[in-house]
Each structure stands twice: as C-alpha cells, then as structure tokens.
C-alpha cells in the first residue's frame, strides 16, 4: 500500500493486519456517516415544508425500528471488539525466541543497548524477519515508543518495565517518534528505526559505532557491577545470609509473609532498589536499598547478569 499516500509504509508483520482492520472500520464509519448524511439531505428535500407530498400516517414510534437500530450497531461493534482484541493480543504477546534489546527513554532521547552491548542513541537497528522485543523504561517522565511503519506503540514509564515487540519485514529506515508528551523538546525526541538483513545486522552489531572500544555485553557489564557494588559479598557468601541467585530468574520465590512471587525483571528491579518490599522467606532484611545509586541502564545490566546465572553454575 506504499503507493497510497494515506498509509505509512507496511514494514512489520502486524502492519497489514492493522491496515486491514483500519480499512474495515473506516469503511463502516464512512458508510454510516454517509448513510445518515444522505438520509438527512434526502428527507430534508423531500419533506421541504412547501412541497405537497403525502404526509399521512406519520409514525411516531416503532419498536421494530428501535430494535433494528439497536441490534445492527451492537452486532457491528461486537465484531470490531473481537477483531480488535485479537490483534491486541497478538501485539502484546511476544514470542519467547525474540531478540531482546534494552531501551531507556529520558528527556529527550532514546538510549538503546543491543544484546552484545553495542549502544546507539535515537536509532534502533533491527534484523529483518526475526522478532525483536524491546525492554523499555524511562529515567524521568512518561514517554512512548512509536514506530508508525510497524504499527506499534507502547508507553515507556518510569519505575516499571514496558515491553514492545515486532518483526520487521522490510528493509529501510523508518520514523521513531515519542508519542507521549514529555516536555519542552518532546517533538525532537525522534529518531529512526533501521531494518537490516540479518547478515547486515550482524555486521552492524560487530562494529564499534561511535565508541572506541568493542562493546561490553550487558551481562559482562552487570557482572562487573555486581562486584563493584558489593553485591557479591553477601549473595556469594557461603553462610547463607543472602539468597543465592543461580537459577533465580523465572522461578517462583517464597516470601516471608507466605505468598510467592515470580522472579521476573520487574521483581528483580524492585528487589535491588528497595529490597524490603518483598522479603524472601528465611532471610533477614539486611540488604541496603540501592535506589538512587544505580541508573536504569545499570539496573538492566545487573538483571541481565542475574538472568545469565544458571542453576548449579559457578560464578564467573
């Protein structure tokens, strides 16, 4: 549909489906708007007050008609509800094998880090044909990651992770906008998403970009932070004063109050920043809060490191 000036480029696996639903619902909207407009005009002309036409037996109420124009709109909106919800579910559930890229938003830029550690700002390079999941968080106010060519958008909140996924289907460079008003330079918080052939993406990934050194992966950076911030002192101690972190990610954790919680990114992030919020059963609340001592990128790196710790593996 690129030749039509009313659609953005269709460059993701969801674009065609979204456009189809748009065309359908716009069709319904225009059909009924024109139907009503046509009825109003033709009735206004036909029953113009000076015209001699048959006005006998005018009806003032009709249960049949009322039911008709209750049922038809109801059926149509239920159809749209179903189609819309189906597409929404597809847009919100990312495949497990997706490539995970970290995005940190702040006034007024997008900071991106790829799995091998390569960074970029206000640009996002992605491979074609492979699902990409963005794990996003804001350092300040609410932003929103919007790529019209992919028909995806997700608000990026402070204090909690948002996810967005897509599969690029066509090479090229596409607009990236911040869609949630975020202050003075909101309109300049823009950039581009570049979709590359997988091989090209690999080549791009191994380049240094603006950096002088080869990139350090988030896991490796997280491991270094783990030492630097003193996490290792307790979490690797043999006396069991702190829970061990191997195999923690993705497991259910039993809490001191008897409940249990899934150890996902959200849980790990909050447990690093404010350890007291959900205390693990069998441990004393001795961990200091790290809120204010780590920035969002560092937290993402620590989480990447913790995720890499498999059960039974020794600390590197």
């Amino acid at each position, binding site marked *: 549909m690129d030749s039509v000036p*009313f659609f953005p480029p269709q460059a993701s696996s969801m674009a065609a489906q*979204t456009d189809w639903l*748009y065309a359908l*619902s716009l069709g*319904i*909207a225009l059909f009924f*708007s024109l139907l*009503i407009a046509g*009825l*109003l005009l033709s*009735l*206004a002309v036909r*029953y*113009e007050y000076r015209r001699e036409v048959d*006005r*006998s037996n*005018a*009806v*003032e*109420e*009709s249960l049949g*008609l*009322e039911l008709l*124009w*209750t049922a038809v*709109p109801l059926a149509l*909106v*239920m159809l*749209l*509800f179903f189609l*819309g*919800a189906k*597409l*929404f*579910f597809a847009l*919100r559930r990312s495949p497990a094998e997706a490539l995970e890229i970290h995005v940190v938003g702040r006034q007024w830029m997008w900071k991106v880090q790829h799995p091998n550690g390569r960074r970029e700002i206000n640009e996002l390079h992605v491979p074609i044909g492979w699902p990409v999941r963005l794990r996003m968080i804001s350092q*300040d*106010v*609410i932003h929103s990651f*919007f790529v*019209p*060519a992919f*028909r*995806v*958008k997700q*608000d990026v*909140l*402070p*204090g*909690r992770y*948002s996810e967005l996924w897509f599969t690029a289907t066509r090479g090229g460079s596409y607009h990236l*906008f*911040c*869609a*949630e*008003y975020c202050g*003075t330079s*909101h*309109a300049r918080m823009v950039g581009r998403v570049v979709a590359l052939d997988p091989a090209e993406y690999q080549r791009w990934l191994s380049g240094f970009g603006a950096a002088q050194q080869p990139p350090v992966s988030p896991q490796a950076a997280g491991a270094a932070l783990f030492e630097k911030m003193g996490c290792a002192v307790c979490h690797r101690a043999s006396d069991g004063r702190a829970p061990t972190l191997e195999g923690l990610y993705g497991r259910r954790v039993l809490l001191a109050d008897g409940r249990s919680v899934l150890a996902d990114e959200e849980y790990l992030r909050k447990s690093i920043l404010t350890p007291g919020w959900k205390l693990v059963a069998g441990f004393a609340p001795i961990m200091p809060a790290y*809120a204010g001592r780590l920035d969002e990128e560092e937290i993402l790196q620590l989480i990447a490191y913790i995720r890499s710790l498999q059960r039974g593996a020794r600390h590197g």
Partner: protein
Amino acid sequence: MAEPTATSYLNAAYTARSWLLTLDHKRIALLYMVSITFFFFVGGAAAVLLRLELLSPQADLVVAETYNRLFTIHGVIMVFFFLIPAIPAVLGNFLVPLMIGAPDLAFPKLNLASWYIFMLGGSLCLVALLFGGVDTGWTFYTPFSSLYSNSNVMLTALGVFVAGFSSILTGLNFIVTIHTLRAPGMHWFRMPLFLWAIYATSLIMVLGTPVLATVLVLVALERGLGIGIFDPRLGGDPLLFQHLFWFYSHPAVYIMILPAMGVVSETITCFSRRRIFGYSFIAFASLAIALIGFLVWGHHMFVSGQSMYAGMVFSFLSFLVAVPSAIKVFNWTATLHKGRIRLSTPMLYALGFIGLFTLGGLTGVMLATLGLDVHMHDTYFVIAHFHYIMVGGAVMGYLGGVHFWWPKISGRLYSEWWGRLSALIIFIGFNLTFFPQFLLGYLGMPRRYHVYPPEFQVFNVFSTAGASILGVGYLLPLAYLLWSLRYGPRAEGNPWLASGLEWKTPCPPPVHNFDATPVVRHGAYAYGPDGELRDA
C-alpha cells in the same frame, strides 16, 4: 440593549449592580454567555497560533516552549471554561426553569455563587497564562506535571479545581430544580428532551467532578510537598493519575455532548413540525450514555501499561456507548420523515451536528478497537476524532441553541441570511480543518509536535486553511447577533411557532417568567398532523 415594550428581565433594571448581584437565572445565564464567549475567543486565539505554526514543518513562528504553552492553554480554556459550561450554564440556566414552568432555579443564590466561582477559577487560569503559562497539556500527566514541569502548574490546577465547584453546584441546582419545581402536569415523560439531557449531564457533573478535584489536589501535594503519589522515585504510581484523571475527563466529554443532543431534539422537532420519533428511547439513551460513560475511562490507556485484560474490558464497555448514541441518531433522522422541514439556521446547525457527531462517534468506535488504537493513540487521528465530537458536536449544538433561543433571550431576530451563511461556512471550515487530521494521524503524526517530518505538510496546510475559514465562521455570529440587539426586528411571542413552555412567555420573558403557574396537559413537541402548534 433594545427596549422591549413590556417590562422584561432585560429592562427591569439597568445598573451594573442589578447584573452583578442578580439572582435571576436568565441574567446569570447571560453573565455566563458573555464570560464563555470571552474564553472561547482566548482559546481560539491560541488555536490560530497553533495552526499557523503547523503550516510548515520547521519551528518558524514560535519556539517549543511557547507552542507547548499554547496547546495547553487552548485545551484548558476550551475544555474547562468553554465546553463544559457552554450549554448547561448558559442555555440550561436560561431554559430549565422556563421549560418546566418555574419562576427560577431551586437555589438562585447558589446559582449566582456558581458564576462567581467560575470566574474566580477562570481568572486564576488567565493569571497563570499571563505570568508565563503552563506547559503540561490539559491532561496534566504525571510525573511530568507534578515534578518536572517548570511552569505555572499549581496556579492552573487551582483554577481548574475552583471552577469544578461551579460545575458541581450548577449540576446540583439543576437536579433539585427538575425534581421539585416542575409545573403541575409536567410529568417526567412530558419533559422536553433537552431537560433529560441536562439532567443526565448534571448527574455526571455532580458525581464526576469531585474526582477531578481530588486528583488535582494530589498533584499539588506531590508538587508542593514532595509527597509521593505519582512519581515512582517517591514510591508513587504514574498510572494512578491517569485512572483518576480520565474517570472524570472521559465523562466530561458527555457533559459537553449530551446537552448538545438535547438542543438537537428541540430544534429538529420544531423545524420538522413533528413530534420526536422514539421519545423514551432518546430519553433513556441520555441516561445510558451518562451511566456507561463512567465505566469507559480506561480506553485512554490501552498503551499506557495497563493490563491487557483491563484493556479488553474497557474496550468492550466503550463499544457499548456506541449503541445509545446510534439510537439517538436514528431517531432524529426518523423525525424528519413526513415532516414539514424548514432549513432555518438552528435546523442547519442541528443537521450539521447529526452528521458530524456520527462521524465523530464512529471514529471513536475505531479508537475503541484495541489493536487499532495501538497505532492511532496519541496521533492526530485522536485530535480529529475528539474535535468532531467537541467542535462538530458540542459547539455546533451550542450555536444552534443560541440561534434557536436568541429571540427568547434577546427579544430580537437576527438576520436569517447571515445565520445560514455562517452555519454553512462553519460546516465547511470545520471539515476542511479536521478531516485531513484523520489521515495525518493514521500516517503517524503524533500530537503535540510543533516540528514534524516534511511529508506531513500537505495535510497540515489543508487543516490550517480550513481553520482560517472556521475562524471567519465563528466571528460572523458574534457580529450579526450583536448587531441584531440594536437593529434586529423585534421578536413576536413565538417566532418559530415552537412548542414548549418557554415559548409561552413573552420575548424576552418577564423577571418571574410566568404570571400564573402554567398547567401542562400533554407531552413535549405538540405539533399536529399539519404541523400546527397544538398547545397554542
């Protein structure tokens, strides 16, 4: 003001004091009319600057800081100080007692107090505007508004907070009045549908506005005292703000549109010389919209991080609102059938309203479609949609009502030729302004951007061109209505031969409305088979 022959509410006294301390609902309505007209042109001036800036992709008229303040003040003024009070506080104030055969509202002093509270709130916002403005957008999203914005958030929020009490008190006054002051024989199902619409609107004002007041206080607590409510760094939750804000601000859209629907029911019957088709369906549709409208706020938050399942529930409920809205549109259309239709100015506005509201409503249905909203949320598609409802709907309804009851209010007739011409100009200008924004939105242009990629320019130029036509369309009624006050022919008792108790009084009505309490013997819209007025 012209001198009618008999003593009316207009010539009963002439002093400033007799206006500023009046307890007459009709004079208070005029105080509101003058105030909101002023606010309308303040908000409109901001819109002119916005549209001029958007003529080109670069920032060449204003810088980002100014642009952000302009769209904020446009939204704040238009929503809180024009659209919400427009029909209820002006036409509702004037007409509710007249339509039910009462001498005044139940609480005349409270009514005057409401206007003063409204003006205090409006003045606070204007002061905030003069001393540097505010740049949060009318939505005040946190934590931007509570901790990051360097602008007059507190003063503006205080202004909106104060004005909210005016809304609550007005709603309360209407509810009590309609319950207790109806003339003998004026059963609920004999009331004009305008009153049903005002009643439904008042329920929303009374039940919804306190939540807005609460959320503004919470923003002030976080901003002023650093109490963590919305900012996660302080332990707060930014989405909590959105839930509370939209819990009021979505129903607020129905505060704007329901009374306009009421106006349409009055005008379309009068100018078709027909009883309304499906009276009780339209009446209950108003209540249904008001009630379901309270349960749909989460459709503003589909991509906010709200749970997917919550999104589903809100989507479903939002679709349900489409049904009573459709019922109204079809019933109005059916009212024209076998009528005697005269395309006078108020009728043109009513027909324009139905057409534009239909498209506005159906594009709202598109936005309620979950997967589609992901792409369209926060783009110009949303801007176009809600302007179709608020400008194409509410403003058209207000102007139609002002024209319809102008002879009643002023005792004078305006120029029908100018009236029709400006209605046509407004309709054309409106569509040219906002239809291109649907297309712009689907292409992906985000809202609140003063600079944009060059490929979006064509539609922006169309939109600005339309806005200039629309601007002319809005200035014309101001001119010829004011002109009619002095030079317009005097209105006879019932220039439209309209049914309804308000037309049983002289134009303009005397201070106490009715010499003797009227007795009602039949339902609203008493137009006979030949279009004649049956209760004359």
